[in-house]
């Protein structure tokens, strides 16, 4: 079991660290790539939970499509610097603010709060032992029988997203 814990710890660390870097990276392209790494390690956590389908979707949609979309969005923005200029000296207050110490503290408080919520809540503390493998077949069998209406609504949602994007760009190019 130790290997499992170790790998979970590593994945969690990578996820958190890369998420932190997404916010603090100076170059926006780097931030996008840190985000891709974060998504990837989250998919690793899904794999550890034996949810291969969800893990694959995580990579396909988040690390693939969303990252590509963000990269395209970056191409539209005017941020162009590739090198970071050396910084001038700053006061301690500025440094604290810049180093993200505050963010770390807030994050820790939030984590502590969430741990508390987790302990007092009714959710079983142990992972459900027989959750089993969520196969694609099961997803399909459930999605297309019980959740027909939400499924069709999803198509309308996607359609609206597409039409929205088209209208936006059409306006922009006029």
């Amino acid at each position: 079991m130790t290997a499992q814990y170790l790998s979970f710890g590593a994945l969690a660390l990578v996820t958190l660290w890369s998420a932190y870097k997404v916010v603090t990276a100076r170059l926006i392209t780097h931030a996008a790539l840190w985000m891709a790494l974060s998504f990837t390690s989250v998919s690793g956590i899904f794999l550890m939970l034996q949810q291969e389908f969800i893990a694959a979707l995580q990579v396909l949609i988040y690390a693939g499509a969303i990252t590509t979309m963000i990269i395209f969005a970056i191409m539209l923005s005017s941020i162009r610097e590739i090198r970071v200029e050396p910084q001038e000296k700053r006061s301690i207050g500025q440094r604290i603010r810049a180093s993200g110490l505050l963010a770390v503290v807030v994050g820790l408080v939030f984590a502590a709060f969430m741990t508390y919520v987790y302990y007092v809540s009714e959710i079983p503390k142990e992972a459900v032992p027989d959750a089993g493998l969520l196969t694609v077949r099961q997803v399909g069998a459930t999605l297309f029988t019980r959740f027909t209406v939400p499924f069709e609504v999803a198509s309308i949602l996607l359609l609206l997203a597409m039409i929205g994007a088209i209208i936006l760009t059409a306006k922009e190019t006029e």
Partner: protein
Amino acid sequence: MSLADLWAQHWFRAFVTGSLVLVFALGNFYITLWLERKESAWIQNRLGPMRAGPQGLLQVLADLFKLLQKEDIVPRNVDRILFLIAPFIAHIPALLIFLVVPFGPNMVVADYDIGIIMIAAVTSYAVIATFIAGWGSNNKYSLLGAMRGAAQMISYEVTLVMSVIGVVMMAGSLKLSDIVLAQAERGVLGWYLFPQFIGFIVYLIASLAELNRAPFDLMEAESELVAGYHTEYSGFRFAIFLLVEYVHMIAWSAIAATLFLGGWVGPTPADIPVIGPKLFGWMTGPVWDNVWGFFWFLFKTYLLIFILIWIRWTFPRVRIDQLMDLGWKFLLPVSLFNIFLTGVMKYGWNVLAESGSPLRWIFWLWR
């Protein structure tokens, strides 16, 4: 710990099989590169490399050795981190694709249930690698190449996925070995090439675009963008991109062979009528099955590679807007139509198969 115990450990097995796959990829990279040169020479009334080794077999080695001796230049203005990690990221999906490809009846590294989705997922990293190579180079040609590459690869990824859906519908599984077995049951003429002919053609065109090979090699179009997204790379960093390109070509051909041409399924000498069982009866058993399976797998893969090379040296390059139009306005609707057709035909067969009505022969191909 004995070797058997070690073999039971997945990480050990992963290392061994991974090394084998790496050797397979590198070896076939070598052969494909040589084949490309010879075949292009053949098409163009030339001899191709002849000096190094018999039929120029060692020419690729000589070229690689030349690249080994090149200075590793990192230009001054590049985004160093992105520039340096791009080849690494590019290499990862090229190898991961082989995880789920069945090389033979019992020769799959890791037979995941989500095989095809995994391939699609892993491929998305190729887009990112291309993009950061182009963006990190801080070169106008590279940037244009990266933009083209990203747009082209995402557009054709959609088409590629859609063209494969038909096969999944026929086989009822995403596992590649299941798909091969489903085809094996149907006999030689039951390969999905025939019922999924539209899907196969769309797959071929889309994989050409996904591979950035002519006539869709727009992101490295040498007459427009010099070398596209890897203009700034030199020495072996450049060679890695070359390697990845060819390994991808092998991988996509292998997947096409698996999905549409029956993978490792093929006749063995023991299948020859009358004399076969007598003369080659000893050529059966699990080991020989794998040998013959691997042979047929390689044969089909190289057939497709041959076709890809043939196409490359025959057609001019299309323009980027024409490529996009082809993808979004033609291939995507066609592949959607293929899904529709497969659905209707399969349903028709399921309904009529038992009825004995003569109408059922219309749907027979989709049985």
